[in-house]
């Protein structure tokens, strides 16, 4: 409550244009100047009477002072105050549009508005937060979840965050989709845009013209999903079921695409197979035909996306394949099944959820992929690029973008549902708490041969692709002037000295530092929210838990492009006015990558025996102390995985970012895409190479810090087991893998 008053009476209510922490606002007429004043003074001056009820509500909890916690009055009062406060808080926030009051009755009540309302500032943030807290105190006092304040406030907090930053933006996007050119709402215009021929046309089937954008996306995503799943399975089998030295090479190679900005693969494909690409020109010379542009469009996209997303499928599947207890397979063999029968009837069905998961990820990644289609798409338009051009293009049609985003969202959600439906409620858990001894039986011979060939080819191809990227960053002008040069690096990353010390004169430094800063800020926040959510999901029982789980998992099926568009639409206007700030980037990263933290947490937390928590509770620790002293220390590997992963994802993300960057907060990826659009491939590739190295270094440092060999690997959970932790803890087998593979 004190915090609430601090927000109400001391801190400026509205967002400031200058930096809050510079405290420059203290000297500029605070607290009387309306732009800087806290709500209390605003009310006192009669400027914003609509804030007054909140003062009243904030004062009410005083009535509960000195009352017993079990007193029903205490609970009821706090809940009422919290709920009313929140309702009023948002009512007044959303009630004031850009052009005065949204609703007639509010105008009648408070009179015409002279000025527009600004976005809410720190003062408002604190007041909103304290209402939330008061409400959770009340709910806890009523005995929900055993009256545990920590758990209740965590639930309320997560629910509020997810609602505010995932559901509200999506709903606002939905509303925007119905916006007509004149600014009114109309179902007709929505329908017109939704069923446009450009989206759903089937002309390509009859051989005349192009198919609709939606079909393009869908087809590409399905093919990519299937291919990456199969390849992922192949690699997972190679890595677990064979004794080849392949294993480590494979695992190392799979890290590369994760730290590679997605469209960089597209660039490499152009360098290899494009019009002036090395392979294309070479073949043309040998066979004496004109080099063609065949790679632009579906073929190129397929190659690039398969290359980029197969490692994700691999990481999902290797966890599952390793999770199949060897004793299952051994049992099958003692029951007279041969290797092939064992594989088909036991192993494959057991990894079915993994396959479904891998497919879903490939599907969503492909749907959301923005960089590759932009670079490689040619005339093959897909939804994500279409959305981009609807927002940044000449047409600037937010409604069109919203409609497209909805179609995209519909596809991914359908896939998400289909997966759940397919998996049904069967339990596929095979790993019991007790460690299984035993060895996976070798694969049937023909299968083994086939997968070795495929894996070998893929490895060779990946190596070529990365070698190309590396080499190309030193080439002056690929295909035309093949002399080697450092010019691209110098242009992007030159460092000079002037009178102020080091002068970062390279053109890329600004976006580079922004990227690192934003990534460093968002990574720990992502990990915190993710782990708290995971704790609630795994360890606590409360009403509405299923809905809670569904909501958090849903955000994982929402493509980045959609998040980007909806943030642009939702946070461009008060009450939460964030466009053009760094905060919006941080927020988008948190909620884009949150499912990863949740999955990492859930995976490793379900490996921790619940009796550990219960022991702590019976020993007198409360739930927060239990979480902090027992669960968190044991989850160190998962925390690390979540940290590294959200950092890396923030560095390489493009789909949501491209909509949210501003001149001041430009991100590396969008900078690179900009260079590609200007055909400055040299700089783009040099920058991308640089980023790959930076991330390798970062990951390397993090591993060194904890003394582990390989990130996102099974060994993350391996060390403590080697040390011989008994019975209670078999730490995340594959937990970290799933974490890495988790985000869409």
């Amino acid at each position: 409550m004190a915090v609430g008053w601090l927000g109400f009476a001391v801190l400026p209510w509205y967002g400031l244009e200058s930096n809050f922490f510079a405290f420059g606002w203290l000297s500029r007429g605070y607290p009387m100047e309306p732009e800087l004043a806290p709500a209390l003074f605003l009310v006192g001056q009669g400027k914003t009477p609509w804030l007054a009820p909140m003062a009243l509500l904030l004062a009410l909890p005083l009535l509960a002072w000195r009352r017993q916690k079990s007193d029903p009055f205490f609970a009821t009062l706090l809940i009422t105050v919290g709920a009313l406060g929140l309702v009023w808080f948002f009512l007044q926030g959303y009630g004031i549009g850009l052009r005065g009051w949204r609703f007639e009755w509010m105008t009648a009540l408070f009179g015409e508005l002279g000025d527009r309302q600004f976005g809410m500032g720190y003062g408002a943030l604190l007041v909103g937060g304290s209402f939330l807290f008061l409400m959770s105190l009340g709910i806890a006092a009523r005995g929900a979840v055993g009256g545990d304040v920590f758990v209740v406030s965590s639930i309320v907090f997560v629910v509020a965050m997810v609602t505010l930053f995932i559901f509200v933006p999506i709903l606002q996007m939905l509303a925007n989709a119905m916006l007509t050119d004149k600014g009114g709402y109309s179902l007709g215009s929505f329908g017109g845009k939704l069923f446009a021929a450009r989206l759903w046309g089937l002309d390509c089937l009859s051989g005349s013209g192009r198919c609709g954008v939606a079909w393009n996306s869908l087809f590409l995503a399905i093919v990519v999903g299937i291919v990456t799943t199969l390849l992922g399975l192949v690699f997972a089998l190679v890595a677990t079921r064979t004794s080849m030295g392949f294993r480590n090479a494979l695992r190392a190679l799979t890290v590369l695409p994760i730290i590679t900005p997605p469209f960089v693969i597209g660039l490499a494909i152009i360098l290899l197979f494009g019009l002036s690409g090395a392979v294309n020109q070479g073949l043309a010379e040998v066979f004496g035909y004109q080099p063609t542009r065949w790679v632009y469009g579906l073929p190129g996209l397929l190659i690039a996306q398969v290359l980029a997303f197969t490692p994700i499928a691999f990481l999902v599947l290797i966890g599952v394949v390793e999770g199949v207890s060897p004793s299952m397979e051994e049992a099958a063999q003692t029951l007279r099944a041969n290797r092939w029968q064992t594989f088909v009837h036991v192993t494959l069905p057991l990894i079915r959820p993994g396959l479904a998961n891998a497919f879903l990820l490939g599907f969503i990644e492909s749907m959301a992929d923005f960089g590759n289609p932009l670079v490689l798409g040619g005339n093959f338009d897909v939804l994500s690029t279409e959305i981009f051009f609807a927002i940044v293009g000449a047409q600037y049609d937010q409604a069109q973008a919203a409609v497209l985003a909805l179609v995209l969202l519909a596809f991914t959600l359908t896939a998400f549902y289909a997966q759940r439906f397919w998996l049904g409620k069967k339990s596929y858990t095979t790993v019991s708490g007790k460690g299984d001894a035993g060895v996976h039986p070798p694969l049937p011979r023909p299968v083994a041969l086939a997968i070795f060939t495929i894996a070998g080819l893929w490895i060779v191809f990946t190596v070529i692709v990365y070698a190309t990227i590396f080499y190309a960053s030193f080439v002056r002008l690929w295909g035309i002037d093949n002399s080697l040069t450092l010019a691209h690096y110098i242009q992007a990353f030159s460092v000079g000295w002037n009178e102020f010390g080091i002068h970062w004169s390279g053109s890329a430094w600004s976006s580079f530092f922004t990227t690192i800063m934003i990534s460093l800020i968002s990574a720990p926040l992502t990990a915190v929210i993710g782990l708290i959510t995971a704790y609630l999901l795994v360890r606590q029982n409360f009403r509405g838990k299923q809905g809670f789980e569904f909501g958090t998992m849903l955000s994982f099926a929402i493509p980045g492009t959609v998040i980007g568009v909806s943030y642009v639409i939702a946070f461009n206007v008060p009450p939460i006015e964030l466009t053009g700030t760094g905060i919006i980037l941080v927020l988008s990263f948190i909620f884009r990558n949150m499912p990863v933290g949740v999955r990492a947490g859930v995976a490793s937390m379900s490996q921790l025996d619940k009796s550990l928590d219960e022991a702590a509770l019976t020993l007198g620790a409360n739930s927060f102390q239990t979480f902090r002293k027992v669960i968190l220390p044991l989850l160190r590997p998962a925390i690390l995985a979540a940290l590294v992963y959200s950092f890396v994802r923030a560095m390489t993300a493009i789909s949501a970012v491209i909509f949210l960057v501003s001149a001041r907060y430009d991100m590396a990826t969008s900078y690179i895409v900009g260079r590609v659009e200007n055909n400055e491939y040299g700089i783009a590739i040099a920058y991308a190479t640089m980023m790959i190295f930076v991330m390798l270094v970062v990951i390397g440092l993090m591993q060194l810090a904890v003394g582990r060999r390989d990130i996102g690997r099974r060994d993350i959970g391996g060390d403590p087991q080697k040390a011989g932790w008994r019975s209670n803890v078999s730490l995340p087998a594959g937990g970290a893998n799933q974490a890495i593979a988790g985000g869409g």
Partner: protein
Amino acid sequence: MTDIKGKAASVEFRNVTKVYPNARVAAVDQVSLFVEPGRLVTLLGPSGCGKTTTLRMIAGLEMVTSGQILIGGEDVSALPATDRDVSMVFQSYALFPHMSVRENVEFGLKFSGFAKQEIGDRAIAGLKLVGLDGFGERLPSQLSGGQQQRVAVARALVLEPQVLLFDEPLSNLDAKLRRHVREEIREIQQTLGLTVVYVTHDQEEALAVSDRIIVMNNAVIAQEGTPRDLYDAPASAFVADFIGEANLLDCEIRRVDGETATVALGPVTLSLAARGLPVGPGRLAIRPDRIEIAPAGTPNSLPATLKKVTYAGSHLECVVQSGAGEIFAICGDVDAPIKAGDAVGLSFPARGPVLIVP
């Protein structure tokens, strides 16, 4: 030197019912029980009978659906685990793997508002009590199963709880160690005068360790009493069969004179405690080791034929076919000259057969 003492309190259930969410039947149904301070009471029953749920409700890890739980006379039904003065030793021991033995033992003390010095002293005293002084700096993973178990006991003891709970504490130990550890637990309990509620599904363990046993079945209490009561006078077929082994035979209750009933089992007439049963068809429970294998024709004996005789080292196990059905009997004399096919007579000593509810 700090000593660990007991602060024993009673535990009482008043019509406690627990229904898990989404479950149709109650896990514990209208159970009332009372555990006197300073006693060791065992909850015994097959898996799924509700004994662990009962224990967890005492701990506060599960909340009652209806009814009241009183500890030391105070209603604690609404208190969560954190706020109850109860500690628990888990089946898996639940030692925190990232803390040393000493840190594990100190864990609960830290949240109980003891001074730093006191925490250290108590932890040392606790470890000493279970014979593990000097092991404080090791990690739980560096201890054997039995040692881990003792750390778990020490961790619970140092809080001097009103009630100490054990959830199948011996199930992860091998057979020899089990007997040893259960004697240690009993000894500590008696020395400190602790109130202990102990869950097990092993009837032998229950008989050996308890002051009193509460047998549970299908969410209700089937019978409670001292180990001797339960073994010698089971109230129902379930208890007779679950505790030790029993032959269940149909019989005829001929006459009831107050406390005594005259019972006919084939040609044999027995005089037994009536236990409130009416004249008519009845049911007998007879322990295998309370049956004497006598020569055929012995007066008041049940004629039978030996079907199988198995040498089991300390005794002979016999399967006998009689008019009342197949009977399993144990013959303490390994040198008895009996073999399969022999005709014998089964005679029953006075405290052998017990009438049970049919």
